[in-house]
């Protein structure tokens, strides 16, 4: 019965995807290295679009990939870069004082 | 809307509008400010006379109502009691205005002072003309708002402290009052004041609730009337300028409280219901305790204004005592004391202000020999003080006489003992300043002499109002049997309130045997 096998395969895939999503979310929110969090977030967005496809929502998948992962990811990366630079500036200023 | 309701509005506006205008005058615009002050005061006086003529000669009724909430109106109405209080306020405002102009000459922030002064009188007249309990509450709160700036007028740390205490008491009283009025309105609706009360129809099992509400109302009004546990703001408020003390003590604030208690007892609960509920006796006891306590404190007060303040605490409770006796004769005594105490006390405060302003006298022991230096003021002081003690034929005697008769009528003979004791205490604290003023000799200079050199003993704007009110205090006693006397008026009110046609005749015969 190939149909049933396909069905169970897909369900297995769904479960795996859900678990991966949860794992990625857990890791990215755990803190530590911010850069890693941001990269994980972008990956999270891409995995989400996969989930949206599985939920028969191709429009949402497109939007998620372009906006949720793409644009938000770019925003996060730039913000992180600026944050680092601000940190350096503060660091330098404090270093100069002492 | 009955005919001529706008007359009442006009009376309110005659002090409100000048008041608002005065706020925005510059300090130097003396002439305009004085014109506005006196113009407003005179206009109000004339309007009240017109109102009196309208009510008593032409039999008109005046009322005005504005809707506030569904079923709840702001009602202004003129009945005999409101006319009594309004007339007292208008007359005393006129003289106090003149006095205050003289007293505050050259002091700073006069525009602000007279602005709030006018607001204060508007609120008092509003209280007088309130046609129901909600309206009374509204103007009562406005009075708080308008008098606080007067209490803190001098701006010193001490006056701010007094202001804080004043606010703490009056706002708390206002909150309690609001709760009580809302509660009562839920039970009985927003009824107009009705002679004999409007709560009879409430079922008997609501007795405890009605007692609770009564207690709250008494607490709310008792704050301003300086009833015993709630009195201590009053002596502290003495830091205000003399005309303010005069106004606070003689007319506006304490009388507003006493007036509210009279209204509640007569026109909301009705004396019968109040007596049935058993609330008049506790009120009577409270009044008596306040009378004795105030007198005792006055005896030990060295500062002249403090002494007068404690005297006020004591004397205002005569009014409450009178209505709490729950009989017509006692009510006559209480209500007539509303007027008499007002006129006498304002005389005393004017005199104290004259002493302080002219010679820098603040303490009783500084009054030595002041009778020679300021004989006119001292005469006025003596007349009013003797009146307070209750020496015949002065005004205070009449009040006490009726209070005594009322007590006998109510079968509470022991109350007369209290009256006697209180009168003795009155003598104890009023005679020393009189004796010192007339019969002691002054050694050395006055503490701070200012108005020297003139032909008069002090500024005419201080002296004239003082003499006017002193003359009134004298006249009210001497001419008590005339139809324009407060006594006649009060008996008319009581006759109406208590529904006894014959009582007033009976009283009158009793009084002039």
């Amino acid at each position, binding site marked *: 019965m190939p149909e049933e096998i396909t069905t169970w395969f897909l369900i297995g895939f769904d479960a795996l995807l859900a678990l991966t999503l949860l794992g990625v979310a857990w890791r990215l929110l755990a803190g530590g290295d911010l850069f890693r969090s941001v990269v994980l977030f972008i990956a999270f967005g891409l995995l989400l679009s996969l989930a949206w496809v599985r939920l028969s929502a191709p429009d949402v998948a497109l939007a998620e990939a372009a906006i949720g992962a793409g644009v938000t990811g770019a925003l996060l990366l730039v913000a992180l870069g600026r944050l680092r630079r601000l940190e350096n500036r503060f660091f330098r200023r404090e270093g100069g004082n002492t | 809307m009955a005919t001529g309701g706008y007359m009442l509005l006009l009376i309110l506006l005659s002090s409100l509008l000048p008041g608002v205008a005065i*706020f*925005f005058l510059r300090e130097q615009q003396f002439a305009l400010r004085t014109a506005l002050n006196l113009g407003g005061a005179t206009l109000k006086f004339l309007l009240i006379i017109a109102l009196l003529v309208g009510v008593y000669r032409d039999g008109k009724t005046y009322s005005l109502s*504005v*809707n*506030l*909430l*569904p079923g709840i109106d702001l009602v202004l109405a003129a009945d005999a009691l409101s006319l009594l209080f309004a007339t007292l306020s208008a007359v005393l405002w006129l003289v106090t205005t003149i006095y205050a102009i003289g007293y505050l000459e050259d002091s*700073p*922030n006069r525009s602000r002072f007279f602005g709030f002064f006018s607001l204060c009188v508007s609120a008092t007249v509003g209280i007088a003309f309130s046609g129901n309990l909600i309206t009374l*509450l*509204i*103007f009562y*709160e*406005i009075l*708080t*708002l308008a008098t*606080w*700036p007067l209490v*803190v*007028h*001098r*701006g*010193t740390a001490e006056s*701010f402290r007094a*202001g804080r205490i004043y*606010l*703490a008491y009056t*706002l*708390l009283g206002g*909150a*309690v009052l*609001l*709760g009580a009025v*809302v*509660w009562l*309105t*839920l039970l009985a609706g927003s009824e107009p004041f009705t002679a004999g009360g409007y709560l009879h129809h409430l079922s008997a099992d609501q007795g405890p609730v009605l007692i609770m509400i009564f207690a709250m109302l008494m607490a709310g009004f008792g704050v301003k009337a300086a009833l015993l546990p709630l009195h201590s703001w009053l002596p502290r408020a003495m830091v205000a300028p003399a005309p303010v003390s005069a106004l606070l003590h003689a007319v506006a604030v304490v009388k507003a409280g006493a007036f509210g208690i009279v209204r509640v007892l007569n026109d909301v609960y009705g004396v019968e219901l109040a007596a049935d509920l058993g609330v008049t006796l506790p009120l009577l006891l409270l009044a008596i305790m306040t009378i004795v306590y105030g007198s005792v404190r006055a005896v030990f007060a060295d500062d002249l204004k403090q002494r007068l303040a404690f005297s006020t605490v004591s004397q205002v409770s005569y009014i409450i005592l009178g209505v709490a006796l729950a009989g017509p004769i006692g009510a006559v005594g209480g209500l007539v004391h509303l007027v008499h105490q007002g006129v006498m006390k304002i005389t005393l405060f004017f005199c104290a202000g004259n002493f302080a302003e002219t010679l820098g006298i603040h303490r009783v022991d500084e009054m030595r020999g002041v009778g020679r230096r300021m004989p006119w003021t001292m005469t006025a002081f003596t007349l009013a003080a003797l009146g307070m003690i209750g020496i015949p034929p002065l005004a205070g005697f009449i009040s006490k006489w009726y209070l005594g008769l009322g007590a006998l009528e109510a079968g509470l003979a022991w109350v007369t003992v209290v009256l006697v004791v209180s009168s003795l205490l009155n003598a104890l604290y009023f005679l020393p300043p009189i004796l010192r003023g007339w019969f002691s000799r002054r050694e050395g200079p006055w503490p701070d002499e200012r108005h020297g050199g003139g032909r008069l003993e002090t500024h005419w704007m201080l002296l004239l109002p003082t003499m006017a009110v002193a003359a009134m205090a004298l006249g009210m006693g001497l001419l008590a049997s005339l139809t324009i006397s407060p006594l006649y008026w009060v008996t008319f009110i009581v006759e109406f309130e208590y529904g006894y046609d014959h009582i007033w005749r009976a009283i009158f015969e009793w009084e002039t045997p």
Partner: protein
Amino acid sequence: MPWMDVMADMALAPWLVILPLAGALLAGLWPAAARWWGLLTALLTLVMALLLALQVHAHGPMILDLGGWAPPLGITLVADGLASLMLLMTAVVGLAISLHALGYLAGEGRGHWFWILWLWLWAAMNALYLSGDVFNLYVTLELVVLASVALVALAGGAAPLVAAMRYLLVSLLGSMAYLMGVALLYGAYGVLGLQALGAQVALSAAPMLAAVLMTVGLLAKSALFPLHVWLPPAHGSAPAPVSAALSALVVKVSFYLILRLWLTVFPALPLSGLDVLMGVLAAGAVLWGGLMALRAPRLKQVVAYSTVAQVGYLFLLFPFLRAHPEGWKAVVFFAVAHGVAKAAVFLAAGTLQRAAGHDRLADLGAVMRGRLKTSFALGIAGAGLVGLPFTGGFIAKWLLVQTALEAGLWIWALVVLGGGLLAGAYVFRLLGPAFEPGPADRGRPLPAVMEWVPLALALLTIGLGFAGTPALSLLARTLAGGGG
């Protein structure tokens, strides 16, 4: 009135969104003329809000299907008594804020940003008041949040920026909780319209959880104690027109939404427990806000803490909703009265601050004596906050106490009365410096409009003291929920 009949069929509601939004877009396009667009918008919006209130009062609630698509499919605009009263209040206060800003921001290089963001905020609030769809409400809510966060941050400086950040995060948290509620409701009933949901919601787990999530989310936005931390720095350090807009208007937005939800969507759900919890939080807010206002050293901080306290009254809504069918009207009237009075107080404070160059209470006496009109506005509007007679605040306090006593909830009556006492204490504390001895000083020269607008608004507070009956009869034309 024949013209009322002509108006009967006119769709006025969309204009209340179109006008401010068009104004916002135009102001964004020509920042140099932003203030004139703002003023024009304010005037037109006020006229429209008045007409709408009259229309609703005369003909009852209006429901408009947007795009001609009937409810399960399309979005509706609902103009009923509640919405039109809030719109009217917003328009009146909005015009005052706009006029005052004309003076306050004159000559400020970045002043145009105020106008742009303020018009956006106005459009967003109007859209929210009119929306009849839970998801559409979410979008309007986000608009309100973004505009008000930007307005808070406009002042620059560490404290406003931190406050803005805090506010944004709390709001986003609230929005997400709200959105989860929407998702649960859609999952359970498959519709998004408020009326349609209200007709279906019955006592079961999904709507209960949705109600809790949405309510708690919105509470966080409305700064109810103890979620109020961001409010005082945000409202206290923003430019005066912004403070006025935030304290008088934005705070009411999430309150309105909570009320709307419980009136229309969730009336079938029991409130047991929630009412006591909310009442306790409300009492905490009243007490804490009042005490902090008594201690704050700066004028605008005092007023900001006063907002924390008065938000507490708003959430007496819950005990009232449970115990009294008409009780919410008292709270709405309070919201309106507070809106007008608080705006007047903040604008007056702004004028004094501009004149003196600072707003430290201890050193404000001279300017308060010199700027009498403004001090008066402060006094009258302050009396409104305390609930002294002849102000809308008095009527509001009366209604609150009446409702509480009528429902037998005397404890909440005590909270209202006690809160009034605290308000009295801090309002008179504000006025104190005016009575200290010393010279009068008008301070820096200011445009006359900055003195007249607070005064006019303060006088309107008195006007509200006589508006109880019409306001209540307008509120009676509110769409009720529950079974249609």
